[in-house]
């Protein structure tokens, strides 16, 4: 979703046929009306400042405070500890740091599985629905349902499916003769995979939607020309579809990465608040560490570290994809 072209296009002389270029520039500029764009932007700016920028600054500041349950209504008077909270959080021998590190690696694995799973499934669906056939519209609608479903109804239904004794999954596996005794899906190591399945179920329609939109933008002539040259569907996928989708994929992967890494609803609802270690994703972990003990200082320190990690990963990713993008 390369929504905003990164290069701020300069003033462009009247080229009305290329709207992308011509829209920018001093439309109503000059003659003392410079304030107009700022007036239009002001409400958005004010809201962004209140709900995004102030909290970030406050979050960083709070990571230096020792806020406990006794100060919650007067947290601004909490004692300053400097980098003390970071010391506790990053002490991987201590209980706090150890469980944070564990949760971080669980989240990494979860993100890798869900991201690749959702992309592959979404891509397969987009390819399968690429050409017209009877019932295509119906299937496309059906495939968008998991995306439209509110998170908690989707996840709570999966929670029921994964119930040990009265859930659908164990019943199905039993009927197929794949299991002898009912395993737990929401406790122990299986919890990780249960969580991944739910997240993929919720995420893949988004990949499907974006990839489908990207494929529609590829002109049909390209395929026609290549099939005259004797290219089959598999070769067309390799030579045309995937390369032409690369700019779409670049943004799609980043958006899905951030979304999956920050996923809160899936573990929170699937495990009813307290996730087993194998499924303890970082968002819920920070939430629990903060609100279960009211230790907002530690929670803020963890949040700041999480933000740094995501910023570094995103920056590296963008730098890397931009470079490879120029070469091709």
């Amino acid at each position, binding site marked *: *979703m390369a929504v*905003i072209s990164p290069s*701020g296009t300069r003033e462009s002389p009247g080229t*009305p046929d290329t709207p*992308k270029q011509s829209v*920018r*520039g*001093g*439309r*109503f500029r000059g003659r003392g009306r410079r304030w*107009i*764009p700022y007036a239009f*932007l002001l409400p*958005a700016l004010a809201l*962004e400042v*209140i*709900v*995004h*920028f102030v909290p970030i600054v*406050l979050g960083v500041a*709070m990571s230096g405070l020792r806020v406990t349950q006794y100060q919650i209504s007067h947290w601004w008077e909490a004692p300053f500890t400097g980098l003390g909270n970071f010391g506790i959080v990053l002490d991987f021998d201590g209980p706090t740091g150890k469980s944070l590190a564990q949760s971080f690696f669980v989240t990494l694995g979860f993100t890798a599985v869900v991201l690749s799973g959702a992309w592959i*499934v979404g891509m*397969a*669906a987009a*390819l*399968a*629905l690429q*050409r017209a056939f009877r019932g295509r519209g119906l*299937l496309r*609608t059906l495939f*968008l*349902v*998991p995306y*439209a*479903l*509110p*998170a*908690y*109804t*989707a996840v709570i*239904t999966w929670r*029921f499916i994964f119930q040990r004794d*009265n859930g659908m999954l*164990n*019943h199905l596996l039993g009927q197929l003769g794949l299991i002898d005794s009912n395993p737990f899906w929401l406790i122990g190591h299986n919890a990780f995979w249960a969580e991944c399945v739910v997240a993929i*179920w919720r995420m893949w329609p988004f990949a499907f939607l974006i990839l489908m*939109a990207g494929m529609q933008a590829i002109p*049909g002539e390209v*395929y*026609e020309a290549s099939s005259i040259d004797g290219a089959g569907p*598999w070769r067309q996928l390799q030579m045309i579809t995937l390369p032409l989708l690369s700019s*779409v994929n670049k943004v799609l992967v980043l958006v899905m990465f951030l979304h999956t890494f*920050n996923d809160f*609803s899936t573990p*929170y609802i699937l495990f009813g608040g307290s996730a087993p270690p194998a499924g303890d994703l970082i*968002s819920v972990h920070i*939430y629990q560490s903060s609100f279960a003990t009211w230790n*907002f200082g530690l929670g803020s320190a963890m949040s700041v570290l999480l*933000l740094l990690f995501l910023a570094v990963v*995103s920056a590296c990713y963008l730098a890397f994809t931009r470079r490879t993008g120029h070469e091709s």
Partner: protein
Amino acid sequence: MNHDTPGYRAFRYVTLTLLSVFVLAPLYVMLASSLKTLPDVQGEFTWFPSSPTIQSFIDIWHTVPLAQYFVNSLIVAVSATVLSVLVAVFASYALSRWKFPGSGSFKSAVLATQMFPGILFLLPLYLLFVYADQNLGTDLVGTRTGLVVTYLTFSLPFAVWMLVGYFDTVPRDLDEAAKVDGAGPLRTLLQIIVPAATPGIVAVCIYAFMTAWGEVLFASVLTDTQSRTLAVGLQAYSTEANVYWNQVMAASLVVSLPVVAGFLLLQRFLITGFTAGAVK
């Protein structure tokens, strides 16, 4: 267009069958279980209700104050959608039509906030609301207002992001013509740009509404018994002693139906919105 090869047909058949089953299984469980009695749903899983009943669809309204949650969710989601899209339309118009000092940094900042984890904002916002309530006399913690303010800016970055791209596709000739007719920027925006960009605006509305309707994290912290939204309220069907799975599933269906129906009715707009605004 070339003809489908047998290999592609087979791939299509297998993929679509598997995916349909994957998508439909939870939806089927939801429906079938909502029609079961409590003993039926608590015992070993069965594919069909032993004695189908719609009793759970009646009980859901009494077990928890579902209607209240519905109203709360509706008020919060509609307010957040209307306000965020309104604010975003103005901001996006400025960003799409003008190049001015600070526009680039604003766009980057908006994009950057998209990537921040919700949990990062939650703790400071909660404490900020506590502070404001105690020192400024506001009423934000545990109220719908607090939630609306939060959700507003959730969907705002995405809305700005999408709408700038969408407005860019509206030809500048139209602005030019409006200017010749003597229209100022405000009239140009409302009479020319907004009508021309309706699919994009509808898409953004759908997205904003769905985000607010389904949000869990902020709703769990920033609401109390009075202002609880569906996202949190649905958890009340699980008590220490009992989980009323038939009612949970019935309530899930009732809660999902309006959004899914609305989404599917408007999906055409969403897909055009994505195509024009997002995939360029």
